[in-house]
């Protein structure tokens, strides 16, 4: 399964016991946005749970980390935690500021009655590397323990 917007995309990849997302993005902010969208798609595909107009749930995010990979995992783990606690699907990420060590913004989503397809135990660091390609685009893969 794949989805894209403005030349950035995510793709769900098979893994023996878990699931991974392959992400291509025009910049780091787009990489983070695609990662969050991809995670939401893993939890509950939009096709089976059409999002309501306007997202009522807002999760403020202000994170610091030693590098972009840890920052990304921190962001996704924070969103996954809140998502699992209140059956909330966060499908959009607004970013005020992002660098390799800092991110400020908010995830937007909605509470759903639908049962999630999978339980993400955690977002892992396994094999995670956000690569900046020669053409300036960003690429990487994230593995989820499910």
């Amino acid at each position, binding site marked *: 399964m794949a989805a894209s917007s403005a030349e950035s995309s995510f793709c*769900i990849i*098979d*893994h*023996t*016991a*878990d*699931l991974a997302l392959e992400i291509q993005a025009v910049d780091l902010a787009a990489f983070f946005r695609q990662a969050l969208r991809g995670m939401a798609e893993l939890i509950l595909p939009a096709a089976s749970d059409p999002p309501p107009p306007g997202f009522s749930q807002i999760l403020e995010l202000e994170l610091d980390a*030693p590098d972009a*990979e*840890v920052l990304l*995992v*921190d962001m996704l*783990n924070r969103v996954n*935690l809140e998502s*699992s*606690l209140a*059956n909330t699907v966060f499908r959009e990420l607004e970013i005020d500021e992002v660098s390799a060590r800092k991110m400020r913004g908010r995830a937007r989503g909605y509470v759903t009655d639908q*049962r*999630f*397809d*999978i*339980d993400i*135990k*955690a*977002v*892992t*660091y*396994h*094999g*995670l590397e956000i690569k900046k390609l020669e053409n300036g685009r960003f690429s990487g893969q994230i*593995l989820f*323990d*499910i």
Partner: protein
Amino acid sequence: MALPDSLRAHGNMCWEIPTSHGASMRVPARIFAAESMLKSIGSDRSIEQLVNVASLPGIQEAALVMPDVHEGYGFPIGGIAATEYPHGAISPGGIGYDINCGVRMLTTEFRFKQLRNRFQALAEELFKRVPSGVGRGGLLKLSANEMDKVLNQGAPYMVAQGFGTQRDIHFTESQGRLEWADANKVSDDARRRGLNQLGTMGAGNHFVELDRVDAIFDRHTAETFGLEEDQVVVLIHTGSRGLGHQVATDYIRTMIGAMPRYDIVLPDRELACVPFSSNEGRDYFGAMAAAANFAWANRQLITCRVREAFDHVLGAERVGSIEVLYDVAHNIAKIEEHSVGGENKRVIVHRKGATRAFGPGHPEVVEEYRSVGQPVLIPGSMGTASYVLAGTEMSMRCSFGSTCHGAGRRMSRSKARREVHAGDLLKELKQLGIVVQAGSKRGVAEEAPKAYKDVDSVVDVVQDAGIARKVARVRPLAVIKG
């Protein structure tokens, strides 16, 4: 990673990759497997991950994997690493996100024929009483004070509250409580994730199952464990749920931040570790133990729900008691004494998808089982056999008192969904006399028997290698899943 050229036989059903294979390897890597399994094992990143584990600071003797190995994240699933106590590494990745995922077997006094027409009703009742599936909370919501007590005291606290008997905890690994647990080291986030999850099964490969003992391999040991042919038994497979996941998440993050202070550089961040004796190491060990206690409390409460379900369905027909045969953890770290290079040493044994298999005479095996070794419970998939094994002296010598933990996945969930039609599978299982009560057809397809390795082969390897002994085989009658 393809199998390395340096791979060589190392005794029966064991293969070794020497330290010369990789510059960072501190000890050899050993694979317990039949020769015919090696190609499959080499088809994913399990071997690469095992080689990485061999680079952990303070690792002793060898990094090990069992025949049910498959690629994980950081550690391979089915991995065992013992590190030097107290200054060797402690690594949350060596325990996994589902801390104290484990298996409990309950024995009943029923024979198959007595319940022949009741399995559907029992499955439906168990499905009601043991919430399963993604995000399903339990019927018991803990106060903050009660949560502290569960985390510090584990299954014995549940028994003190009326959920079960002293006998239940006597026949649980570590008596259902790790005494060094420290609830204060468990974050508020982790507590929030676990608040309403006690008594719940979760999703994925977790289950509650009614089984029939269909083969006895070692009559004396089976009798010692209270098993007879045709007996109906119950298997419970679950762990510490969201609470344990969050503890692992929290501490892997902490250790990534701390590793530079200890000059630790590793090939994979999921192997993040610190010296056990450091503040971060001690904190994690206390939090991990608290999550393990939560898991034992969880399986204890589910045990009570199973008893209630039998009472409800069978009423006056219910005879005898439902007793815990044993309860084992297969994702955990413990300080244990083992022989390393001919010297008895305390080591920190990480088991990630591996089961403790202490042999006869070991003081930590309860007196009732001490002459035969501890029971080792190996769950299969929903259509295949599960096994009761016994620990051996060889496992004490060769695998830090450990053996395999299950069939091991061989197919991704997506591939299983593509290849298996849940409706057809349910019909096939019904023809085999297996009732399935599941929350989702997706889950049924993902957990299809073909998605797993052949559990019979896995168990044959550990028996042939001498690191466990077959006692009995059970086959599913009713499977309850998320």
